[in-house]
């Protein structure tokens, strides 16, 4: 049976799904608003700017085109004038090249993208990336070099607080279903599955009702974090295991997020480039809700226009609380992969205590690793041992740090350890 495979490990953090999903609110753009567009909003090489300072750009016109290798296009979220091309903030990387657009306040229709004979080309033209958080350029995923038999549309949204996919599925259920069919046809798959966690019963019912016209399975999954992780989702649904160091395409599966699917549909049918997305504002705020956000809006303005206030001492997180990046300043803009902005209350500083060997970190690890040993190896600089213990399999879900009763910084240390290990491994590859 589909969706009946038991996922080992995982945690059950408090869901805190408090944002209002009844409607996706529109973000209001005023004249003179500055938009900060970093040229990296995806995994891979930066996009190359095609505009100059002083140029007038329409909403949806291309401002940076796909760079060499893994990269994609970036479009203007607003009509206005290019104020500057310099360095701007990126929530995870820091200062990188980008441009600042000053909005003229007009609310025109977006400029349509042209051409694109198949869905992969449309995805590149529209600058679509994985909107689940990783930001992998979608056109690469849509042209797999191996046969794909199953397409999985990921609507699990297992992160606490985030509800952007939930709101989108309620609003654009039909688009998602049709987008799923397009993806299925593009990669010539035989099956298509939309997976939703059981805490979104309304979405499951809605999609099931609409899916009658399409040959698509809607599957409700047990609520568990990280149910929505790529490898975990495939295992939960199909019982197939993605081997270490391989991609889902290697076992004939393609995964797309629901928001990406919707963006693909809109790009194919309305020729709409990806310049906006649904973002959840939640956490310890007055009005947790979902907004359709143009990219490039600084967090401060988002808070202000959604009538929420920043309280001194709160932590601001872009993305979910388990994998998102906390930002240093409210001037940092939202990018394509930002699914949520969370304000989290300051928690009492907790001391890091010695490991008590409870083994909970390896009980919750969905990849079957032993986080406590990976951490110890890192602390004594033993990169080789870490590679032996498969540190590169870590999916950085953060379960180990979440569960650790001694509050050890396991996931944090393992991320650093992975960096060292990957430097070593690439040097080893070169020397061969």
């Amino acid at each position, binding site marked *: 049976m589909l969706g009946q495979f038991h996922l080992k490990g995982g945690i059950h953090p408090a869901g805190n799904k408090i944002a209002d999903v009844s409607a996706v609110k529109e973000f209001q753009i005023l004249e003179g608003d500055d938009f900060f567009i970093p040229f990296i909003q995806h995994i891979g090489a930066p996009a190359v700017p095609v505009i100059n300072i002083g140029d007038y750009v329409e909403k949806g016109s291309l401002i940076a085109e796909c760079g060499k290798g893994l990269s994609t296009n970036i479009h203007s979220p607003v009509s206005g004038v290019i104020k500057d091309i310099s360095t701007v903030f990126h929530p995870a990387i820091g200062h990188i090249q980008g441009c600042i657009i000053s909005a003229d306040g007009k609310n025109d229709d977006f400029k349509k993208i042209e051409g694109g004979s198949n869905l992969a080309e449309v995805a590149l033209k529209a600058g679509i990336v994985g909107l689940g958080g990783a930001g992998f350029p979608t056109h690469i995923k849509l042209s797999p070099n191996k046969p794909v038999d199953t397409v999985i549309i990921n609507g699990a949204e297992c992160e606490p607080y985030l509800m952007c996919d939930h709101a989108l599925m309620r609003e654009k259920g039909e688009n998602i279903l049709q987008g799923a069919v397009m993806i299925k046809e593009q990669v010539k798959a035989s099956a298509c599955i939309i997976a939703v966690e059981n805490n979104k019963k309304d979405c499951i019912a809605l999609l099931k009702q609409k899916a009658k016209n399409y040959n698509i399975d809607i599957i409700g999954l047990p609520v568990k974090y990280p149910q929505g992780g790529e490898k975990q989702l495939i295992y939960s649904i199909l019982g197939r295991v993605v081997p*270490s160091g391989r991609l889902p395409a290697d076992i004939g599966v393609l995964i797309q997020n629901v928001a990406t699917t919707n963006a693909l549909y809109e790009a194919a049918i309305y020729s709409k480039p990806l310049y906006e997305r649904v973002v959840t504002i939640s956490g310890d705020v007055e009005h947790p809700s979902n907004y359709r956000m143009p990219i490039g809006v600084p967090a401060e303005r988002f808070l202000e226009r959604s009538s929420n206030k920043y309280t001194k001492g*709160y932590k601001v*997180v872009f993305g979910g609380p388990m994998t998102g990046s906390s930002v240093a300043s409210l001037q940092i803009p939202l990018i394509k992969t930002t699914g949520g902005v969370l304000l989290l209350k300051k928690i009492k500083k907790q001391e890091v205590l010695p490991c008590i060997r409870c*083994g909970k970190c390896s009980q919750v690890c969905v990849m079957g690793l032993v986080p406590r040993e990976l951490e110890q190896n890192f602390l004594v600089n033993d990169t080789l041992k870490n590679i032996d213990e498969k540190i590169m399999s870590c999916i950085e879900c953060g379960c180990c740090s979440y569960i650790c009763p001694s509050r050890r910084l396991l996931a944090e240390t393992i991320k650093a350890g992975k960096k060292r290990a990957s430097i070593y491994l690439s040097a080893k590859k070169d020397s061969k």
Partner: protein
Amino acid sequence: MKELMNVTFAPHVRSNMTTSNIMLYVIIALLPAASLSIINYGLYAFTLYGVCILSAVIFEHIFCKIQGKKSSITDLSSVVTGILFTMTLPPTLPIWTAVVGVFFAIVVGKMVFGGIGQNPFNPALTGRMILLISFPALMTSFKSPVYTTIDALSGATILGNVKTDLSTYGYFSHYPININYLIFTSGGSLGEISPIALIIGGLFLLYKQIISWHIPVAFIGTVFIFTFILNQVDDNITISAYHHVLSGGLLLGAFFMATDYSTSPMFNTGKILFGIGCGFLTVAIRVYGGYPEGVGFAILIMNAFVPMFDKFFRPNVFGDRDEKLF
């Protein structure tokens, strides 16, 4: 300049289970058995508990101060060790002996190895065994409890009685299987008085996911099956499996001592093998050894194998076995 916020790595939320919470839950789980022993043995038992807990905390604090470290008593693990240690003592033990035992439990059993999480042997059992070997007479002088469901035993426990009978007469008298035995045993060490209280405490820990079922089930199961077979083969070898499971320190050991995080394997296969090993050694010592009770020794011996279990029985890395397919 605008205000800057503290930047940390993900995850930004944590579970509310902390080391001190875990220890607090263990203390709560021990309360039923501890209070029943106080009811049964009176004020002196209460004094023993108090003195042991207090001296455990003080020894740990002093040791940390001598090392120039921050005191680690707030994690409450020394309180747990204090209670568990007291539960293994006979109800008549002089206070000074108990304090000596606590010293060995906390300082020699735990702190010299580097404190919590570093000790290879269960501290409470280390303390008890050093006392048992050093002061055998004091450690085996038991007292009849106020409430008991078994009448007129010459020794403290059924196990002790059987051992004495066997060495004196070459045979032992049989005991009927009595359901009341679940509620109160015939006595013995402080914590062994009520099997049902220990089971309730153990189930509470299982429910709170502080311990997993692997060690207690493997441990108690092995003792049950092993003694059941022995008893079936020849009922003059040993008493019934029912009495083996409920007598002595088996439940206390299986739920609270063999599951001690620092001194038990971390992974499930290792846990089960560890439990089976403890069970076999317990029965071997009880039936064929010189001591009437073997739980303590069995756990300590198996503690020595824990690093080996952790090394050889690791969890499977997801997708690792399928790597060869490509």
